[in-house]
């Protein structure tokens, strides 16, 4: 699992430019899949046949895209003005390395030295307009040879094992979900299942709109990464969810009130299997479920998420045991007998 996560987290895939992730997934699933197709927005659909076919189809999905940056303008002195793709706290971007475009041009998001700042300036986060990317060019014409406005970029951040069970990487959101799906596609399944690797989740769960329309499922399971705030400055409910405490079962977030019977079913599965589960103690964020559950005449939708600290930053931290737990619960769920899901 760690090796697969490492590979996935190091592939560039900012929203709208998921090609490299999709190519990897396509290559990986080739020997296991019964059908592979792609739609016009870039979602990758993988059908894995099982022993039986469901009357009420089930779709599993995870998003391939990650947060990143987009170049907006090259200044006369060769700096890049940029904006974020997806939700990034500009405070975590300052001083970080980025890789821009297919050629992976390196750059840094710079800010003037601390010596030169006033007390007032240090009290608040600089505006986006005060930030720029330095790619080492002296003038606009030389920068233009390397990058163009409209180029997308990602944070340049290595994958590291932390402590005994934890990993640090960019894009754990949602390559963790992708990794779980790849593992499941490699297994023997009880039922035919559509696995969808979606695009553009970070900019508003857009890929999932067409994915759910195309598959037209009755049930959906979304595999995600979610906001863990189990850090010393947060207490009680504000910790939201915690690393090492198992899979987060979706109850409600900013985009979805998840199906209650499926919530109860996942909780029951977790308890029977002796697996840890938790729910978020704040209603925040959103997942592809937001688009999926209101598709066509409605889809009963649930989610399993990996608690992830510092999510949407270059250095997310997650616990591999939680990812394994998500895999176990997802496996049990998608192999559930038809009447159990319908109950």
């Amino acid at each position, binding site marked *: 699992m760690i090796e697969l996560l490492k590979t996935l987290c190091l592939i560039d895939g900012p929203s709208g430019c998921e090609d490299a992730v999709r190519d990897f997934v396509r290559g990986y699933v080739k020997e296991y899949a019964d059908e592979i197709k792609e739609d016009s927005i870039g979602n990758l659909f993988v059908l894995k046949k099982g022993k039986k076919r469901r009357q009420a189809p089930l779709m599993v999905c995870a998003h391939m895209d990650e947060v990143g940056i987009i170049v907006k303008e090259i200044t006369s002195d060769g700096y890049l003005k940029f904006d974020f793709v997806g939700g990034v706290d500009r405070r975590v971007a300052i001083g970080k390395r980025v890789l821009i475009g297919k050629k992976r041009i390196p750059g840094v998001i710079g800010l003037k030295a601390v010596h030169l700042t006033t007390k007032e300036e240090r009290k608040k986060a600089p505006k986006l307009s005060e930030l720029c990317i330095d790619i080492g060019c002296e003038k606009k014409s030389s920068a233009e040879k390397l990058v163009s406005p409209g180029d997308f970029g990602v944070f340049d951040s290595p994958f590291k094992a932390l402590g005994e069970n934890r990993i640090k990487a960019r894009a754990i959101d949602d390559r963790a979900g992708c990794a779980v799906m790849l593992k499941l596609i490699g297994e023997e399944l009880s039922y035919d299942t559509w696995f969808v690797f979606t695009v553009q989740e970070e900019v508003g769960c857009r890929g999932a709109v067409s994915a759910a329309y195309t598959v037209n499922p*009755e049930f959906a399971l979304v595999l995600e990464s979610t906001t863990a705030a189990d850090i010393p400055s947060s207490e*009680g*409910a*504000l910790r939201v969810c915690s690393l090492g405490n198992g899979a987060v079962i979706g*109850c*409600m977030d900013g*985009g979805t*009130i998840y*199906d*209650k019977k499926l*919530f109860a079913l996942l909780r029951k599965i977790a308890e029977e299997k002796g697996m840890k589960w938790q*729910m*978020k*103690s*704040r*209603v925040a964020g959103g997942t592809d479920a937001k688009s999926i*559950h*209101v*598709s*066509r*005449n*409605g*889809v*009963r939708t649930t989610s399993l998420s990996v608690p992830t600290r510092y999510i949407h930053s270059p250095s997310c931290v997650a616990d591999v045991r939680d990812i394994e737990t998500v895999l176990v619960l997802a496996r049990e769920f998608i192999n559930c007998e038809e009447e159990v899901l319908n109950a």
Partner: protein
Amino acid sequence: MLSIKDILKKLCATASPSGFESETAKVIAEMAEDAGLSHSTDALGNLIIHRPGVGRRVLLDAHMDTIGFLATFIDEKGFVRFDALGGISVCELHNIPVKFLNGTRGVISYEQKTELKDRKMSSMFIDIGAKDEKTAREAVLPGDAAYFDGELRELSGGRIFAPYLDNRIGCAVALHTIMNLKKCDYDVYAVFSVQEEVGCRGAKTAAYAVEADFSIVLDVTDSCDTPCFDGYGETGMGGGAAIKIMDAAAIAHPSIISALVDTAEKNDIAYQRDVITAGGTDTGNIQLSRAGVPTGGISVPVRYIHSPCETADMSDIEAAAKLLRCALETQSIIL
């Protein structure tokens, strides 16, 4: 035969915070069954009642969910932290009684050290009277939903107040109408939709399923007649049925607006023109369903919307119901 007020009272005695609408759905379904109407429920929990006809297919929509609260965390002293289901201002939540769906009662209060202007949902808590976390968890678990604990009460002059006139009123208007329609060729579907307060989600799937030729949404609107009302608007209590022109999510279809205005004038029904620029309704999602659905609305002005004391005038509710019934029975809506 149930009067519209009887229906309203029955609905006000049920609970249906967004995402947890089954209790209200059951009561509506029972009344529909007693009137000999068939019904179904979709994947999200929308209740769809059908009164077959040979004419054009009409979708009447009234959301049956209400704003409410979702327990998210139980602290070590047994206080329940929560988040809002729907749009609720913290200023409505100071020492207010609430009730969980499992019957547990509580009082919403606030962290005293946090100044009034800085209070957010995360500064608030529900005191359910538990002495510690263990006893609290025996009564309430994260994921449980609560709602304002109150019943329908009468004011003088035919006015009423209750926590959830938004949108028990729309439900009562739709249900009373479909139960009592006399001559009507339209193929009428009444959808009692879920999750309007969290983003008009239920209406989206219901509109897809019904695939109507046109739609009328029954909801409440701002009553702009209180002292120093913040904003502009002409709708007021006692002014009659509010015919939707526009809300923040939709512009009503011109043919439906004019048909409703004509119907009101021909039948001597008090009406007012309803323009609100803050706050959307299911109208927005229904009109964009599939290839588009001409959609309008009949609303009832309500004061103090999204508070525990939403206030309305029975004469406006009666006018809204009469307008809807006349529009359907005379088949005045021709597109």
